[in-house]
């Protein structure tokens, strides 16, 4: 088989795989929309570069069952408690100095109302050691905290990992998801994950202290879920990545049965 025909074959195989995913996506979206009006989702980035593909993920046909608005800082949480309050807030901000007090109060209100939060990539470091309650009791992780033994001396960035992501357990978010390869991403191999969190996905990258890549946070009333990947354009346009984020959004919005 010549190089050219191998390329044709691979191209056709990839196209067929993509097509089958695209056919399945509207079906999933239709199933979810049959359960009620579209979820109101607020995507809040800020403070760090993110690829265009991260935003464009929310215009993917598989996200047709959610109505997404982008609202970066400042005053990103002012709508909480109002008539157009989001059901789910997806964060990818990088505010290591911590949100201002007014934002924290609004977020507590959102959580106490039992609503959803999905924390992506950069946002696992937001508030970090500035608001311990957020890190320990809501999202269940520290990206950096010099008071946690071992975190001060080891590398905290690894670029760019090609890893296999494997689902763990039988949580609704992981149901139907097979292990998949995730190309070229930035990882944080030295995070502290709360033992009160429920791990959803693990990485096979050997540099992780704790292989957890995705987990449900420990907050008792709200539905909080974190997914560490999401740095590169390669990852943000990956269909498997988008499926995981979509499942997380639906679960955080109460649209996936526990």
């Amino acid at each position: 088989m010549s190089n050219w025909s191998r390329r044709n074959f691979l191209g056709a195989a990839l196209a067929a795989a993509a097509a089958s995913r695209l056919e399945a996506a509207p079906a999933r979206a239709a199933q979810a929309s049959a359960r009620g009006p579209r979820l109101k989702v607020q995507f809040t980035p800020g403070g760090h570069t993110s690829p265009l593909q991260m935003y464009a993920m929310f215009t993917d046909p598989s996200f047709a069952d959610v109505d997404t608005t982008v609202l970066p800082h400042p005053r990103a949480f002012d709508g909480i408690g109002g008539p157009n309050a989001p059901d789910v807030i997806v964060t990818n901000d990088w505010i290591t100095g911590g949100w201002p007090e007014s934002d924290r109060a609004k977020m507590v209100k959102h959580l106490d109302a039992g609503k959803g939060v999905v924390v992506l990539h950069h946002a696992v470091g937001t508030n970090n050691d500035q608001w311990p309650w957020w890190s320990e009791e809501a999202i269940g992780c520290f990206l950096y905290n010099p008071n946690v033994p071992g975190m001060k001396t080891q590398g905290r960035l690894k670029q760019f990992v090609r890893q296999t992501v494997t689902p763990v357990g039988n949580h609704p978010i992981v149901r139907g998801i097979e292990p998949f390869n995730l190309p070229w991403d930035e990882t944080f191999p030295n995070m502290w994950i709360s033992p009160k969190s429920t791990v959803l996905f693990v990485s096979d990258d050997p540099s992780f202290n704790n292989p957890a890549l995705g987990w449900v946070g420990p907050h008792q009333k709200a539905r909080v879920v974190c997914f560490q990947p999401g740095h590169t354009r390669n990852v943000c346009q990956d269909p498997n990545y988008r499926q995981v984020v979509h499942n997380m959004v639906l679960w955080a919005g109460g649209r996936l049965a526990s």
Partner: protein
Amino acid sequence: MKRATGTSASRRRFLTATAAAGAAALLHPARGAAQKITKTQVWIQLTTGGKPYPPTLQEMFLDPMFFGMEIWPIDQPASFAALLPAPPAPPPAAGVAPTQGRGALGGGTERDEPPDYPWEPSGGRPHPGYDVLVLNDQMDWPEPTRKLAQQAVEAGKGFVLLHHSLGDNQDWPWWYQEVTGGLLVLSDRGGMKRSTVGTAANLEVRPAGKHPILRHTKPFTLTNEETFKDMWHSPKITPLLQTSNGGSDSTIAWVGVHPTAKVVCIQPGTSRETHRNLSYRMLVRNSILWAAGRL
């Protein structure tokens, strides 16, 4: 049989040789002289913040018509430092091997970068530098941000202001009087009346004048768009687009007034329909290229 000169095969060989010579010239533009890196892409910082909008804004920039542009979203709180020339890097200290990671956190970075990745924000590689700042935020920038913006304006950088960002910096007259030439007035101030905002408007849009940004632009229609009426406008602006919609000011896109920076202001840009309108996309594309000095 003797092969005739100028056949397809020999033309291909000639074109191949010419292309190879051209590529070699591009790869080694200054052999014998000091090596200089030439950026071929236009680098763009896209900054939003403080106001909601649909994700179709960023989706727009994935359209192939934006080919040749490296567009990096960084939303508020955002720095404009990468619009300015980077200071020379200090010489590496002897005995310090690991690359530094995120400055705020310290720590090291292990790297294995894909060969075609253009640049990486967290990796410590020198920033190529942005040519154009595209804005859709709405806020009063803090003082350090204003200082960087002013330096970028005076350095002749490009600025494309979309929709919400026409309300930026209500309390910084230099910005709207000397740079953008327009302000969405959010509350009565300094003799200016508050502007009004209309929703779900259909706008018949027509080009005004013969500016390079308008090349190949024909009249077009925008739907479900937000309109601004009674904005403050400088008499020195150069109109680009106009509409006769009664809920809107007549001039809805214009070239700003600063003598060194290249500034374009575009009032529409809030609806999914607008972001997916090909004429709108071409307008934004041309504005970026012109602001970067490429038109």
